[in-house]
């Protein structure tokens, strides 16, 4: 079993909040991912059992949503928003500089497994651009120096 008993209990609590069991699938995927950083094929199979679904039903949900991962990720996710309002204020230049700073390209993870770098569509910070999302936190009104400082401080 890759899903811990504690997480299983939390999933059961979530299931109680929905009129139909499957409503708790997204919450359950979030919980599993919090534990492991991604949803492995084993975890997806166990979730399929819990939710009385075919494994493919769980896999297609994982692949549909940007925030679920089906393979291991860096310890930290760094996403620069490159949608229009951010691009108008230099987001793509910033992203290029962060690629150079980390020595990786968008979509890649640093060799020490510390950071996965990506770009994301609109994150709802259009008035405070450019910005990046580091795990659950927004960092706004960025310049290159500040962005590098934030990345360097990540463990």
């Amino acid at each position, binding site marked *: 079993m890759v899903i811990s008993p504690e997480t299983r209990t939390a999933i059961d609590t979530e299931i109680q*909040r*929905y*009129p*139909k069991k*499957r*409503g*708790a*699938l*997204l*919450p359950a*995927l*979030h919980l599993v991912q919090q534990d492991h950083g991604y949803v492995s094929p084993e975890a997806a199979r166990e979730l399929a059992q819990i*939710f009385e679904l075919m494994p493919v039903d769980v896999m*297609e*949900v994982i692949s*549909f*949503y*940007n*925030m*679920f991962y089906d393979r291991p990720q860096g310890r930290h996710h760094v996403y620069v928003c*490159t*949608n*229009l*309002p951010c*691009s*108008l*204020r*230099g987001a*793509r*230049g910033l992203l*290029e500089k962060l690629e150079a700073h980390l020595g990786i390209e968008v979509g890649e993870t640093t060799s020490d497994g510390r950071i996965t770098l990506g770009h*994301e*569509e*609109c*994150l*709802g*910070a*259009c*008035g*405070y*651009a450019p910005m990046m*999302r580091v795990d*659950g*936190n*927004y960092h*706004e*009104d960025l310049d290159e120096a500040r962005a590098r400082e934030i990345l360097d401080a990540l463990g």
Partner: protein
Amino acid sequence: MLTVPHTTSYLSEHFGDDAFTTLAGYRARGGWEAAKKALTKMSPDEVIALVKDSGLQGRGGAGFSTGMKWSFMPKDGDQPKYLVCNADESEPGSFKDRILLERGSQQMLEGIVIAAFATGAEKTFIYVRGEYAFPAEQLRRAVAEAYDAGLLGEKVLGTKFKHDVVVHIGAGAYICGEETGLLESLEGKKGQPRKKPPFPAQYGAFGMPTTVNNVETFSHVPHIVRNGADWFKGIGTEKSPGTTIFGVSGHVVRPGLYELPLGTRLDEIVFEHAGGVPDSRKVKGVIPGGMSMPILPAGQLDVPMANEFLRERKTMLGTGGIMVMDETTCMVRVASVITYFFRDESCGQCTQCREGTGWMNKIVERIERGAGSQGDLDLLLDVAGKMEAKTICAFADAAAWPVQGLLRHFREDFEEHVRQGKCPFSGSFQL
């Protein structure tokens, strides 16, 4: 970072005050009095009639009458009924629902309780986009406080009315902002929109009658109940009453949020409130209502921000996300960013949308690279035209409109790329 609106009115008046985010602080400003009035002194039908009379229009983009939407909910039957709060704000250029959650969760919850009472809903699912971790945290705190104070749960405000709220976290998909895509996602599936009819009021969340409203729409409701329909109709325009929170982004001196009456002129928002374009450059074009809405050129900014006026200029209010582009901006680059977004976010269900968004992006990128032909311009319009009004949801239309708008007002930018075989705007933003 605290990012309260630069101009405020009744929705955001107290957003600068930390106490307002707590139940005690909200109550000290008269919070929850409107819900008390609705639940103890009014009938559900009276609440619906009041909201209908106020003329409140949904603030999530489509602008449909809120009271009318509530009235579609069946009055009889023993099926459970649900409300869904659409907090999946993801229209590029829009960032108002975020502040309404971060600083005004109690206000929104009060609106939800009033709407639930009016429609007979026993439960509300608040669908918050997955990236909004901090707003969701604020909302969860507000929900817990409301339960502890008896404002949610078995006996709301000591009455017989029972209501539960579930905060549901999304996982990153623009299409889940579409109300039936959202319902599918809420049910634990891929967020692919449903065919309509049946509409959510008949067959909504988990197959039950459901009303879906946006965060801001709910937030207006307590003010309407407290101050009356006439008060609300006294703000904004005759057909579009009330305020909204405009988000201004792009090339302006003071980007940010501005709560202003509907009908405030676009040029007033851009030049007076947001300070115009930095370094005395000129405006080239402005997207008035989130990225799906067609752009307006600099000469057409003298328009009141309300649908009845914007429609005359072939665009719409949408979510009130105003994106300003200065004279250095290459509109083919803009088209490239926009078409990439829609290509990336199409749910893939309908052929016209899945294929059309991909081809529009490929054609625009070819033009931007300098490899396009004059025929590509008409090809783009042909593809866009074949995507409109042919799919299950409005996503394909939302992908076609901005391309049509850019070609309507900035065709010369596209032609110049073809003629020169390269991008002629050296100072434009990086792609």
